[in-house]
């Protein structure tokens, strides 16, 4: 009955905000592996935002290159090997900058919507 799952209304993550969401999630939770990042975003957004898993790993690779996150292999509570990501100093800076910009844009959009 997979259809049951797919009927849940979910929105794709707005373009350009994936990095911000990943960074924010890592900033709050410390160390997470890829699955946890996706699940956490989904859970905190109360199932509204679903990370497209296909884009998660390329995004993480790019963030590694940029030096925003670091990755290390660790062991899960279920005793399985998993790669844990952690936000780096550069990542925090980037997060702050992106949040600032996002707020500005959202504020502006809301002003446009309320104007009339």
């Amino acid at each position, binding site marked *: *009955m*997979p259809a049951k*799952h797919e009927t849940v209304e979910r929105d794709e993550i707005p373009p350009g905000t994936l990095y911000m969401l990943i960074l924010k999630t890592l900033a709050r939770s410390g160390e997470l*592996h*890829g*699955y946890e990042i*996706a699940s956490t975003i989904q859970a905190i957004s109360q199932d509204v935002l679903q990370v*497209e*898993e*296909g884009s998660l*790993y*390329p995004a*993480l*690779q*790019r963030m*590694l*290159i*940029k*030096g925003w996150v670091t990755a290390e*292999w660790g062991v899960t509570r279920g005793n*399985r*090997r*998993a*790669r844990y990501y952690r936000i780096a100093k*550069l990542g925090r800076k980037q997060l702050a900058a992106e949040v600032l910009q996002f707020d500005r844009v959202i504020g502006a959009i809301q002003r446009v919507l309320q104007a009339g």
Partner: protein
Amino acid sequence: MLWIKELVRRFFMMLRREKLDRDLEEEMRFHLDLRAEEYSSRGLMSDDARALAQRRFGNITVLHEESYGAWGWAWIDRLFVDVRLAARQLRSAPGFAALTVFILAFGIGTTTAIFSAVNTILFESLPYPGAGRIVTIWETSTEGARNDGTFGIYKGLAERSRLLDSLAVLKPWQPTMTSADEPERFEGQLVSASYFRVLGVRPFLGRDFTPSDDRMNGPGVVILSNKLWRRRFNADPTIVGRDVTLEGNEYSVIGVMPESFENLLAPAAEVWGPLQYDMSQGRAWGHHLRTIGRLRPGVSIDQAANELAELAHEIVNEQRPETYRGPFNLNVFSLQADITRGVKPALLAIAGAVALVLIVGCVNVTNLLLARGVRRRPEFALRVALGAGRERLVWQLLTEGLFLAVMGGVTGMAVAIIGVHALVALSPPGLPRAADIQLNGSVFAFGFGLTTLVGFVFGVIPALQISTSPYRSIQDGSPRTTDPQKLTSRALVVAEVALAFVLLVSSGLLLRSLQHWFAVDAGFDASHLLTMQVQTSGRRFQENSVTYKFFDDALAAVRSVPGVTMAALTSQLPLSGDSDVYGVRFESSPIQMQTEDHSAFRYAVSPGYIETMRIPLRRGRLLGDGDRAGASLAALINESYANRNFPGIDPIGQRLRIGPPDSPLYTIVGVVGDVKQVSLGLNRADSVYVTPGQWKFTDNTMSLVIRSDGDPAALARAVRAAVWSVDKDQAVVRVATMSDVVAASAAERRFALILFEAFALATLVLAAAGIYGVLTGIVAERTREFGVRTALGASRGNIVGLVVRQGSLLTGCGVLVGLLGAVVASSAIAAMLFGVSRLDPATYAGAIVILSCVSVLACLVPAWRAVRIDPASTLRS
């Protein structure tokens, strides 16, 4: 700097790409597992859960590629594939690869080596602060001959000039140091106190000269070079203030120059003393000093030249010195231009020649690549058919070209290293900064740039040729040449022949110049002549009579050496670089030389000198033992000098003064033949010969000339021993046969000639290879036609004629283009030519003959192949 860190991260990730691959794979599999578990915990069958997770995740290979692509490796991967393919291609044609790499290595290597020399000598700034503002100041006579400066002009300019920051004069000095150890003669300079200030360097130990050091009879002080300080004084830090004995006098060391100091005006100089110029006796107006100056910031050389020329004429008008009776000019050059003046034309011409070699090499390689491209046409057609884009094919060809160029470049760097060593070893003694020539960063950058450029060109030409028409050959699939391809490779061969012709003509002109150079009558007989320089040093030689006696005794001892047939002494040796010029005035000359520079070379020679040198006597008598101190003063002058001053009059018995107006009068007793003193290329020969005993000063340095029956060089040891048997403390230097001295006078020309000959030979071989290659192609292409012709009764001679005619056509076109090129190019070497016009018909004809012969030789093998074509089998095929 973030992007640098990013680059570094990318780079390190690339090195660990396999681990990264595995990590990514494991990570994504783990993610899928968790997702599948999640679904099955919600009640799905495990297979369904897995499928759903998979579906949600997407195509794992694509994702993998994409994540991996984030690192920007895709192009590297493609490059690796291309390079591997290129390497495989070349391995399948090792002969072609080796030949190509060899040609390229030679071209790139020699060009890089020559560039390193040209760059160091002509373009790298001199190792002085503000080197661009250092100038040298010369006087030129109306004939254009350069004269050394005079102290009088120096002093006047130093007092009056407003555009000069500082001015200095200098002259060579070769003091002998005596100590507990063996006596040693140093190369050195006597300089005015401002010398190091002009160069902008200071001693690193002690102090610089001050004006108080530099007055007549001032204190004996010296500054040592770093090398001398290390060599003779074990780098003793307390050297300043110590005394050394030079010329038998105590000199106090006041400074040591830094190790980095390069004394370009006299590279061998190891010791400097103050000039302490003796202004008495009118010597101030003798031309025997070099003058250098430093311009004030912002002053151009032209401005300075105008000011100085004006001031110099002002000084001369006020003081009216004897030696400035005729008009003269003052010229100002940058120090760099001055010290490279002699070699600049040669270097630039050599650089041009080597560039031609490189171009010819590239042309050849391009032709090789084109020919190969034709053979590979089916392969390309197949690849296009299999879906390779044109862009991909071009990339592949570019990679192959670059790959070849890089291999050639790497090998070429080895050639360059050898080349630089050879260049330094071959270089003429006058080559400035030869020791600084090396393969440094800029040279490697040049070599790298060249390699890349060459690779790009090699890639692009065949790529353009081939990528335009692979579609057509797909139909017939045969490696037949097409018209544009034929045309290109023939045009390239024509270009090659033309360039070879240019180089042949250039080296021919240089060869003829050198022949003319050595055919010049020096005015003396250089064969069987040994020369060496003897210098007296020590306090006892301050007594003139002691000096005379030493030289007399030494000469007597030398004359008694077995094998010596004649020997004599002279204060200056022709063609050796010696120059001692005095103002000479004839007491009564019908031609009052108001308009002429009337300085002449002054020789103090022992009786027997003219005979030993075999300078012909034209009139009167030679100098003899009777012409000694106290006897009436006798002088010889040379023939052209006499003819100019005494046209139709017997010069014998006329009288002249050497130096200032109050000098004594000498009577001309004889006229001898002209001798080239400065250079075989300069006609200036005005000379006056007197005996040392009748000369007012004493020459402390004399050259021995020794004539022998056999090999003069074999006498060197015995002659030196003879000199030392008189006084073992006197330095004997500059031992050489006169033939060597004459040869050294053409060293720069010979240097250029050797390189040109080598390059001309290389291009000739390359051009021959080009002709051969194209003709081989043509023969292969016309196989069927030749077969038919033979079947129809064409003789072997007809067939050979056909092939040779085709080759000759290419050569002919090449020669025509080359003729134009050579006319243009020969102006570049005009400065090095001597006694031969740059349009010398004999040279051009010679070059045509050589090229024609080589071209016919290159045709013969393909022609032979054409003759051997079996008509039966070709007709059947």
